[in-house]
């Protein structure tokens, strides 16, 4: 009855789903791109950014990667568009745009 969850998607016929939708295998939440729920999207305006890194720890979904002390472009797979990052940015380096 158990099936690799990665083989299941919204086009899967009912009789090919797992019994009681049981999810077999661990760490599957990474495959669930909750960013699809987003109705507004943060834009990174790189020329305004001072790399103060205030935005990174405030993101509830860890969508602002930091490499060698510098924040990178948003990773939007899990970004729900909450806008906290845009709110804490003191340098207008993040703007919220309506839409996905």
């Amino acid at each position, binding site marked *: *009855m158990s099936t690799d969850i990665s083989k299941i998607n919204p086009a*899967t016929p009912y*009789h090919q*789903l797992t019994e*009681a*939708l*049981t999810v*077999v*295998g661990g760490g599957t939440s990474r495959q669930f791109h909750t960013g699809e729920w987003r109705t507004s999207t943060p834009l990174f305006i790189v020329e305004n950014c001072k790399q103060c890194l205030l935005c990174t720890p405030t993101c509830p979904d860890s969508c602002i990667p930091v490499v060698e002390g510098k924040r990178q472009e948003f990773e939007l797979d899990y970004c729900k568009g909450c806008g906290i990052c845009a709110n804490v940015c003191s340098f207008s380096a993040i703007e919220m745009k309506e839409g996905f």
Partner: protein
Amino acid sequence: MAIRERMSGNEAVAHAIKQINPDVLPAFPITPSTEIPEYVATYIANGEIDTEFIPVESEHSSMSAAVGASAAGARTLTATSSCGLALMWEELYIAASNRLPIALALVNRTLSGPININCDHTDSMGARDSGWIQIYAENNQEAYDNFVQAYRIAEHQDVRLPIMICQDGFITSHAVENIELLEDDLVKAFVGDYAPAEYLLNAARPLAVGPYAISDYGMEARKNQEEAMERSRQVILDVAADFAKVAGRSYAYFEEYRLEDAEYAMLMIGSAAGTAKDAIDELREQGMMVGLLKLRVYRPFPEREIAEALRHVKAVAIMDRAESYRGGGGPLGMEVNAALFKYKAFIESRNYIYGLAGRDFTTDLAQQIFAELESLVVEGQQIPDYQYIGLRK
């Protein structure tokens, strides 16, 4: 050799539990089912079985604990009655939709109000759409036999659904009658071990049970659950056939008592069927062709088989020991009438509400009903579609 004993329905079910020695029993006391966990707790205290007994603070908790234990991979059961079942409401659906083969020893008792501790089927009838298999007993022997068959049905890989084994409060649960028990080793061999393919305590295969389903999946999950209930029809018959080989007692979806050549039939569930059989014997001696259909399996509902069994009669009295407050009859009345129509068995039918809150059902009442059916057919007398019988007027 079968063991001849005498015991109450509660003790009979507890005895079956002792023979099965399930893994986990979370339970909360409620009349008239309290004795079942009491007996089992005694067996555990005496070292006769090693079931894990969890004393919980409510039935909401007992069914929640049963859901957790079953998901973890344990053969699980609980017992309850009446308001206890009502308090389990949410978890009944969770147990069924998560496809957890939990057994519930239900001792039927009315729901409040007026508050009352006696038998009717209001509690389990309310749970008829919860996705549980429901099997009913006429007496302590059937309660025992049904419980011995329960896990074989519920745990079958084609089914994997929870099962309610119902008996009538006090009338069956507390009355002491003769009974034939099976030997312990026969029961153990018949029931077998429980080895679920996936379970939470299997560290080698991580598992998430009961995940949130977005609209893309919820309907498909329910269709799968419905098909499992559909497949249980055959499994129930197969298990009954195996049981007959071991015990010499045969079961099906229902028992037909002198129904084959009957002109007038009564259809009912539970202990009152014994009374109806006595009334039928008396009327048969007087030359009246009457018979009984005693429904054993209510979920899944054997609608086609019921229609075929009744097709030849002139009239049937559909007996409900529960009011549905839909305005116009009880749950059995509704479903049996629908079955007769669906399978084009166009016989006269009338729905009677009887035995609510422990009201006695007597042979006189049964004979009165058969007389009404006859007057309806022979004299064309007006008989209400649905009425209370045994009511002070």
